[in-house]
């Protein structure tokens, strides 16, 4: 797509609502007329990776965000947790505590029947094989299926089957899968990552569960990211938006703030990105 310069990838990591910061990054790239050669998404980042790859404009993507994170997305969690712990509710490898109907509805609304081969920019989404724990890269088929698999937060939403493989949240394998961009031949890689928040107080089983997941995912993020930086022979540009406010999941009023922080993070790295793109030009 850009024969004149080395290929540029955007990787959007796991971070639930904070992933909306990707829209801020995208705004900056559009303003500067910098074209992406591929987009990679993991977990919550998959939503935005798909929107960017399809060429949705910012306001469409913002609307998608607002209709996605609604209160009924997590309905039934607490009562089903009690039922599952006491044994009243059967829990298998295909179970989740939350009914995925609202999630599927939101995904269908945003992406309909669109497929990977209809994107304007090559797109790769990351999930985890529930049985083997391995990272799975999804690059074909229906977008809704791939995103559903990539965002399947364990215990909350049931794993999702694609081609006979049972898949769960990509964050369990690699929260910021920079290696997918490396393998696909990207030279400059914009990596948008998020530290998950640690809770100060743990007053429920759910809080402990969430907290332990954050510990794992943050440590996994650090370990994989350190490795990619060491292993990749070219440039990985870190975009770590700085959230100086507490961002809670269903507070839709925070979205402008989240997007702004993404924009700020991208602007800070812009001179460096420009220099890389220019110096590497043929």
């Amino acid at each position, binding site marked *: 797509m850009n024969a004149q310069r080395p290929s540029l990838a955007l990787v959007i990591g796991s971070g639930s609502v904070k992933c909306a910061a990707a829209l801020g990054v995208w705004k900056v790239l559009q303003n500067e007329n910098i074209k992406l050669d591929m987009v990679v998404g993991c977990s919550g980042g998959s939503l935005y990776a798909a929107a960017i790859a399809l060429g949705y404009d910012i306001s469409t993507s913002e609307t998608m965000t607002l209709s996605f994170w609604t209160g009924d997305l997590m309905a039934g969690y607490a009562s089903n947790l009690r039922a599952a712990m*006491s044994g009243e509710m059967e829990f298998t*490898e295909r179970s989740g505590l939350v009914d995925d109907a609202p999630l599927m509805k939101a995904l269908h609304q945003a992406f309909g029947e669109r497929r990977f081969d209809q994107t304007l920019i090559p797109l790769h989404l990351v999930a985890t094989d529930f049985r083997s*724990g391995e*990272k799975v890269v999804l690059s074909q088929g229906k977008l809704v299926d791939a995103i559903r698999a990539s965002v399947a937060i364990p215990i909350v939403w049931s794993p999702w089957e694609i081609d006979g493989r049972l898949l769960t949240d990509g964050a369990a394998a690699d929260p910021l899968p920079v290696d997918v961009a490396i393998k696909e031949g990207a030279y400059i890689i914009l990596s948008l990552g998020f530290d998950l928040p640690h809770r100060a107080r743990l*007053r429920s*089983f759910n809080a*402990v569960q969430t907290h332990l997941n954050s510990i794992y995912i943050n440590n996994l993020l650090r370990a*994989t990211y350190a490795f990619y930086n060491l292993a990749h022979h070219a440039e990985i540009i870190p975009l770590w938006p700085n959230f100086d406010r507490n961002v809670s999941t269903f507070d839709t009023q925070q979205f402008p703030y989240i997007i702004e922080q993404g924009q700020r993070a991208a602007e800070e790295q812009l001179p460096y990105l420009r220099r890389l793109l220019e110096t590497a030009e043929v």
Partner: protein
Amino acid sequence: MTDDPNQNPKRVALVIGSGSVKCAAAIGLQNVLHREGIALDLVVGCSGGSLYAACMALGYDAPTIADMTRRLWTREITRRRSYSAWLRILLPGVFGFDETFGLLDDRLVMERLRAAFGETTFAQAKTPLYVAATDFMTGDQVVLSRGRLVDALRASIAMPYIFKPQRVNGQLLVDGYLSDPLPVGIAIKEGANVIVAMGFESPYQSRITSLPRFSFQISSIMTNNLFKANFAFHTLAHHSEVIPVVPEFHERIRLFDTDKIPYIIEEGERAMEAQLPYLHRLLEATTAR
């Protein structure tokens, strides 16, 4: 183990990763090193591995360590459930749920750790010992190298949900595997040049029939991925040698399968023997220099 560390110009470390009862494979590894007259300059342990790291650092012999293993991991430990913990999950408002939560009554484990290590402190170890745990509030790795061994070991094996976190020096600590299941980085920081790293993959559930089993599956997935990522990084970043010793178990070994200890030790021996020529070559190349 009592050799003067200055004898060898290279510092040799043994790192034993998390792996519950499978960590007994370290006994097999110890047999091989002992037979070959290879002394260790430091020992690092994480989670179940910290128990063996401690025994080796104290200079216990193989039969003593095997005996400790049998006495420590018995079915009784899993049978002593903390009923209040279940009530706290079901009715957090009534019974007060907080971060000191654990499903099993840990008094028995503490008793057995005391029986094995008494009041021994790190300072009494013949070989310098480092035990890895995880700060429960921040998720950061915490390296313990002073104070009473039982406290450090209890913290390092504090599997989330199963055992309560352990407070050490004001920090609430949980199992070391949450930050790094095979903490080679500690040996690197302590100046080791040759690092024998014994690690274990977490087993996956064959059938998931309950929420706790589902949680264990997810935890195994993340632990294994963390293990691979950290190990890949340390191997690439370290300027000297990391020798992986990963025993292969063809029999299924569950958390408290102590009757399989002889088999586990054998596989540990086998895994170490497979890497022995490489280890010898490294040590010889060093002395010649």
